[in-house]
């Protein structure tokens, strides 16, 4: 019989990664992500994987990318200040189409900020943090079991689309413990790393399946604009590269989207949330529904590519959309754009380091919708 375990968010992330076959971790300690690193330091060597405590976050992401090219399923975890340092590497991973996973447990910022207080201030950085147009997939989670599943999803999407995948956690979720059914082997899908077929005619390493270094196909990996064999190009071929690597993600928003929708059918108002804020949002929506108010809940787990279709397909009954976030207004801009004027979109931000309460969210909905059932 399956038994439940009391598991911390960071623990679920580390074990989710191991479940997904992660066999390389490089990182630099930073609150509130350090438990992920400590678990990997304990678990990877005894499972035959590689753990490296790097000299900084730039080295961490660089070693992760190097390890991925060596054939490993590689990951790092950090928080805001370290995530800022990793942007250079994330851009390199994007242009070289390197499958890898970067976990950012968000804390209050900017700068050192409040290291032990939660925030959702890194959303835009996760999407747009590195320079230049680039592909990236951004995921998030709201409860501990979710952290496990989304970490596995991060590895799978990294393989499928050959992109860096960012998983956004936050201080509360990272340190919170909940009872969860830990997925059994085989319960969740794990997409394996593609390997070159022995004796097969070498195919170009870019634009097709991933080929690790040192398996008999000699090519080049570069952060420069490059052709399908990894050699520098300029002009139209560079444009073709950029369009291809960005489109391969942007055009698959529907396939990449992970979300939960609740009570949308007849909703007059919808609370759109993600991450830890989905917890008070759920409480708020349940409370409002029990009063008979027609309020729905849309919980996003994929933040990028942004699931525009969800908002285009909202029921016509929806007149008001509330986006509660632990920031001064980040994802709300995407929501506003995707809603496209079909309903009024409002932001509810909390930035004192504490979690929004169900009362704050429910209160704002009632202010706008009234108590009318």
């Amino acid at each position: 019989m399956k038994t439940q375990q009391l598991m911390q968010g960071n623990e679920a992330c580390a074990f989710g990664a191991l479940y997904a076959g992660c066999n390389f971790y490089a990182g630099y300690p930073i609150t509130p992500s350090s438990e992920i690193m400590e678990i990997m330091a304990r678990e990877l060597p005894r499972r035959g994987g590689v753990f490296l405590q790097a000299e900084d976050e730039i080295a961490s992401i660089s070693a992760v990318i190097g390890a991925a090219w060596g054939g490993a399923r590689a990951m790092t975890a950090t928080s805001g200040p370290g995530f800022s340092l990793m942007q250079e590497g994330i851009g390199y991973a994007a242009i070289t189409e390197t499958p890898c996973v970067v976990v950012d447990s968000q804390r209050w910022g900017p700068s050192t900020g409040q290291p032990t207080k939660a925030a959702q201030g890194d959303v835009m950085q996760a999407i747009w943090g590195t320079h230049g147009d680039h592909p990236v997939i951004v995921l998030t989670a709201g409860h501990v079991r979710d952290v496990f599943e989304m970490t596995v999803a991060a590895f799978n999407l990294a393989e499928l689309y050959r992109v860096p995948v960012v998983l956004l956690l936050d201080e509360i979720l990272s340190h919170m413990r909940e009872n969860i059914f830990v997925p059994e082997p085989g319960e969740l899908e794990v997409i394996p790393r593609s390997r070159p077929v022995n004796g097969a005619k070498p195919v170009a390493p870019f634009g097709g399946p991933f080929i690790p270094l040192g398996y008999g196909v000699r090519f080049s990996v570069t952060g420069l604009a490059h052709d399908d064999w990894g050699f520098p190009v300029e002009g139209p071929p560079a444009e073709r590269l950029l369009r291809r690597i960005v489109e391969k993600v942007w055009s698959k928003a529907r396939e990449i989207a992970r979300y939960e929708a609740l009570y949308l059918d007849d909703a007059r108002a919808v609370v759109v949330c993600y991450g830890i804020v989905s917890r008070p949002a759920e409480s708020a929506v349940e409370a409002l529904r029990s009063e008979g108010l027609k309020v729905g809940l849309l919980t996003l787990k994929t933040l990028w590519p942004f699931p525009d279709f969800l908002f285009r397909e909202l029921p016509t009954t929806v007149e008001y959309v509330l986006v509660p976030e632990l920031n001064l207004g980040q994802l709300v801009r995407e929501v506003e754009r995707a809603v496209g004027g079909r309903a009024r979109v409002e932001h509810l931000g909390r930035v004192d380091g504490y979690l929004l309460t169900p009362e704050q969210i429910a209160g704002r909905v009632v202010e706008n919708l009234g108590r009318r059932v």
Partner: protein
Amino acid sequence: MLIHTAAEYDRYLRTQKLPTVWCPGCGNGIILKAFIRAVAALNLSQDEVVVVGGIGCSGRTPFFLDFNSVHTTHGRALAFATGIKLVRPELTVAVVMGDGDSVAIGGNHFIHACRRNIDLTAIIFNNMIYGQTGGQLAPTTLPGRRTTTSMWGNIEPPFDIVRLALGAGAGFVARGTVFDFEQLSEILGQALAFKGFAVVEVLTTCPTYFGRYNSNDDPYDMLHGLKDRTDPNEATMAEKLPVGIFRNEPRPEYTELYRQLVEKLGGGGQR
């Protein structure tokens, strides 16, 4: 196998990518050739060698070499190489960097690679200037020298890369020049064969910028200048800049220690 003919060298080159991006008179091509000769002498298979470059004139080296080529970001070549080597310890990993790459922007990675003693061969092209970006000050530029960012004469003292590597704990530390090809390829061979972190500083020339800004841009004179500045006989810290091998002392190597740890914990078999 010791190689001599152009055809023998061509085997290791991506000839269709030539000519190189390097200016006429640049010393970097000599390092490229010395490296090929060292690899050939060690009978290393091209599939088993990874050449990792950073950013700068030197960073372009991997494109011309027919090995597994990786051209990384500025200063991070050693960190990328560390990831590759850790998961594929059976591969020979050489890292080519410039002086800015290795001891300015990448200085942190450099000293930690020395300390960690991971089996990489770091080949540092030291031309005492930032060539690719148009001739700015390097952390190895000597006092008084002119660059586009030290037009009144450099007032900063330079890094001595050899002393830095020795102090940070690298197991193999050497210096060569593009003037002495024989010695350079010999040093590179020993460095590649060394089990641990090997540092080879190669003094090279940049006639286009360093020469032009410092009153002599004749490639021949600059090469001979290297000869005059260095002392090939005395591999010690003498008045002239010594060249040769300063340390060749194997100590426990990181990927080997890691392998032992995995074995001790019973985690073998997955890699």
